[in-house]
């Protein structure tokens, strides 16, 4: 499986090994990695921690589709990605995307494509815990009050 949702901390070196293991032996001259980490502020507000929640079955399905699209669109050998769920402290890795390609251009382009599509399409929600107020789901205009 090349797209995963995990509730345990992401170890970048483990995922780099998995990426290289999946790529045809020694065909990749460039590896580009994007690592998204929890930062201490959001839209000017101090952030204490984050909570990620995933609709796992659909997240994996859509994540695999994005990786397949990346392989079809760019001259790359392999692409893998993993996203965390649960409560994350500042500095923890929330998402890791790795792309291996013969040349750096395609690797950079594909990595950017994967993280952008992942953020737009994969059903994962983020709740920010603030120092100055109650936690809120990110990207939601207002709470539904049926």
């Amino acid at each position: 499986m090349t797209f995963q949702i995990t509730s345990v901390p992401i170890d970048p070196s483990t995922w780099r090994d998995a990426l290289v293991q999946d790529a045809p032996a020694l065909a990749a001259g460039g590896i580009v990695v994007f690592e998204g980490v929890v930062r201490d502020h959001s839209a000017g507000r101090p952030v204490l921690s984050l909570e990620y929640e995933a609709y796992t079955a659909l997240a994996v399905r859509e994540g695999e589709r994005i990786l397949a699209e990346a392989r079809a669109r760019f001259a790359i050998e392999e692409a893998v990605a993993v996203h965390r769920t649960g409560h994350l402290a500042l500095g923890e890795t929330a998402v890791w995307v790795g792309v291996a390609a013969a040349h750096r251009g395609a690797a950079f382009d594909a990595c950017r494509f994967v993280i952008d599509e992942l953020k737009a399409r994969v059903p994962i929600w983020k709740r920010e815990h603030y120092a100055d107020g109650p936690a809120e789901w990110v990207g939601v205009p207002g709470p539904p009050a049926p």
Partner: protein
Amino acid sequence: MLQPVRRSAEPPDPMQIRLVHYALFRDARGRDAETVTTTAATPRALFDELGFGAALASPESWIRVAVNDDFAAWDARLADGDTVVFIAPTAGG
């Protein structure tokens, strides 16, 4: 000989639909999942029946729907035993 005409005005049979809730929809419903008995033929009708339609204007523009673990159209036909998830704006990464 004339064939009997099936009248479209007949009420549809009630179906059992399983709803799984995430993020703000779980907060709004106060539970992770529920099974509802409904005659709503589409996710859009179900959304309105649950009372979300009155609170959330034009949901088609910012909320997505999944039926049986894949994205579906708001006017998809629901079948007995389907699982429906309403997907609020996501923020992975």
